[in-house]
């Protein structure tokens, strides 16, 4: 444990959306913290609130979103109280992001080079164009693009998905951010290219001591890159702790269920245990634990039916929100 306060600290974050169907609850009381230079993995199925969570951190939620939190602090700054111009100093500079689809994140009408240069010049208006170009080329080389100088003139459609994602990573690290948010960055990539991009992210983190939030629905991918993990279900963190420990020995039934249905080479055919049912819809009001309906343990327990379990700290820095887990 370091004496430094965490780089990112979130306590009791709620995000609701106003809609014709009523108030939709997307994130419902999430706590998490991230130290400098570490990687936090966020796993969970679609609709669990992972992307809404990171958009709340980045201040990119739509106008109909209602955000409240006890603490939403980045490096001591209260993100909930930033003005538009203050956000411009943070986004792309101190906090940057890499998203899932490298095709739509790049403009097809401009060269890779011009987009990378723009990412630098927007935050470094004092630099001349030659210096910016020089830095852009160096960045492309650092993310493994060979012949970078010539390739600056390429258009995105001339590059493969893996190369585009590398370009986006280059843009994301161009201003030496303290925090990089990666939302399913390798999901659309082939598996050997995914392995290369994950290795690239790991080496960037080692060399530049950037903290990373890595969102994925794949437990295997998160295990290969994250130090800590938070498991999200229906807008809540249900388990968090050391990534290795949580994924090799889960405490929460949902985490265990995710592990049980994760296909692996070498796993006995027919041994995948599917999770019955589906996650609750965002408008549903649920008594008790929201995982209860799909939980083999909680289905018949009275406490699971009546009381919503709170995330509680247990041994070894692990936190679990479950009545069936003794602390």
């Amino acid at each position, binding site marked *: 444990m370091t004496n430094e306060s965490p780089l990112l600290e979130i306590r009791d974050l709620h995000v609701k959306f106003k809609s014709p169907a009523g108030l939709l609850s997307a994130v419902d009381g999430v706590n998490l913290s991230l130290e400098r230079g570490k990687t936090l993995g966020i796993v969970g199925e679609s609709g669990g609130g992972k992307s809404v969570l990171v958009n709340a951190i980045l201040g990119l939620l739509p106008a109909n979103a209602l955000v409240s939190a006890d603490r939403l602090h980045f490096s001591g700054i209260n993100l909930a109280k930033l003005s538009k111009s203050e956000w411009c100093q943070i986004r792309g500079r101190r906090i940057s992001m890499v998203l899932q689809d490298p095709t739509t994140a790049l403009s097809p009408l401009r060269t890779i080079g011009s987009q990378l240069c723009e990412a630098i010049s927007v935050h470094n208006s004092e630099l001349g164009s030659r210096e910016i170009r020089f830095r852009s080329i160096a960045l492309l080389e650092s993310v493994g693009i060979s012949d970078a100088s010539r390739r600056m003139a390429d258009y995105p459609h001339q590059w493969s998905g893996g190369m585009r994602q590398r370009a986006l990573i280059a843009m994301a690290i161009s201003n030496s951010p303290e925090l990089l948010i990666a939302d399913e960055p390798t999901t659309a990539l082939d598996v050997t290219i995914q392995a290369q991009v994950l290795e690239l992210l790991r080496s960037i983190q080692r060399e530049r001591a950037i903290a990373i939030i890595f969102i994925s629905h794949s437990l295997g991918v998160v295990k*290969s890159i994250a130090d800590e993990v938070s498991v999200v279900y229906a807008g809540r963190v249900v388990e968090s702790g050391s990534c290795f420990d949580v994924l090799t020995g889960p405490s929460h039934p949902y985490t265990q269920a995710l592990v049980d249905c994760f296909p692996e080479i070498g796993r006995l055919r027919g041994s995948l245990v599917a999770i019955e049912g589906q996650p609750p819809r965002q408008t549903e009001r649920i008594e008790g634990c929201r995982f209860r309906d799909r939980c083999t343990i909680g289905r018949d327990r009275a406490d699971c039916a009546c009381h919503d379990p709170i995330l509680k700290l247990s041994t070894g820095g692990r936190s679990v929100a479950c009545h069936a887990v003794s602390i």
Partner: protein
Amino acid sequence: MTLSEGETLGIVGESGCGKTTLLRSILGLIPIDSGVIEVLGGDPPGRNDGNPVSRALVQFVHQDPFSSLNPRMRIRQILQAPLRINGCDHSTSRVRELLEMVGLSHSVSDNFPTQLSGGQRQRVAIARAISLKPKVLLLDEPVSALDVSVQAQVINLINNLQRTQGFSCIFVSHDLAVVAQVASRTAVMYLGQVVEVGETDAVLQEPAHPYSMALSAAVPSLRHQPRGGPWIAPVVGEPPREKTMTGCAFRSRCWLATPQCEVKTPNLEERAPNRQVACHYPLGR
């Protein structure tokens, strides 16, 4: 490549390897330039000449459950259409039977596809595909668009249906771990060629072709991973843009490549019982 009766053959490979093109050729949707495709003793369906096999016997499940079902038709109508076209029983009870076979309640009959989840839609697509009692079922990345817990449900469903209905199945996926769950034999494709084929467990766990090894090693695993990430086989770069006519297609990324790999194209050869590999320097032999 051969598919035996009652067998599930997995085909794995990354983008551009030709696996989807291969399926479409078997379905008769794409003309082939050379070679022979024989389906159930006849030609692929849909041809005007030769001896085309009936379309009903070779059915297909698409990757995307969101675009493969007509959004303007109710589930009931989607399932009845192929039955009616082929002069089969398309009564309400047949629809109910099909829905039951894929684990869906009869209450979804009147829904539109947009009212169902991805997993439910994929079940409907599977129900539609087996409704004509095909002998061959082709599945193109059937679970790739689904959440992991739903993937498991659909994988289990496909395995069960195959046991009860007895169709032969080709399961195409880029996800080796998923293929490991369904296929007894697996073929690995790279840039339009089969580079290795054999029993699934053997091919994925003791690969003979360097590309198969790179693929297996790159798969993120929960079990076989030390802290700090997987060991990644030294395959660098990406597949070449232009396919070379001579030599091995994988040589530009292969750590075992020699000058011979540049001039001599390796043929798919039997290197061990029930294992074929296209490589001059197969591993482990």
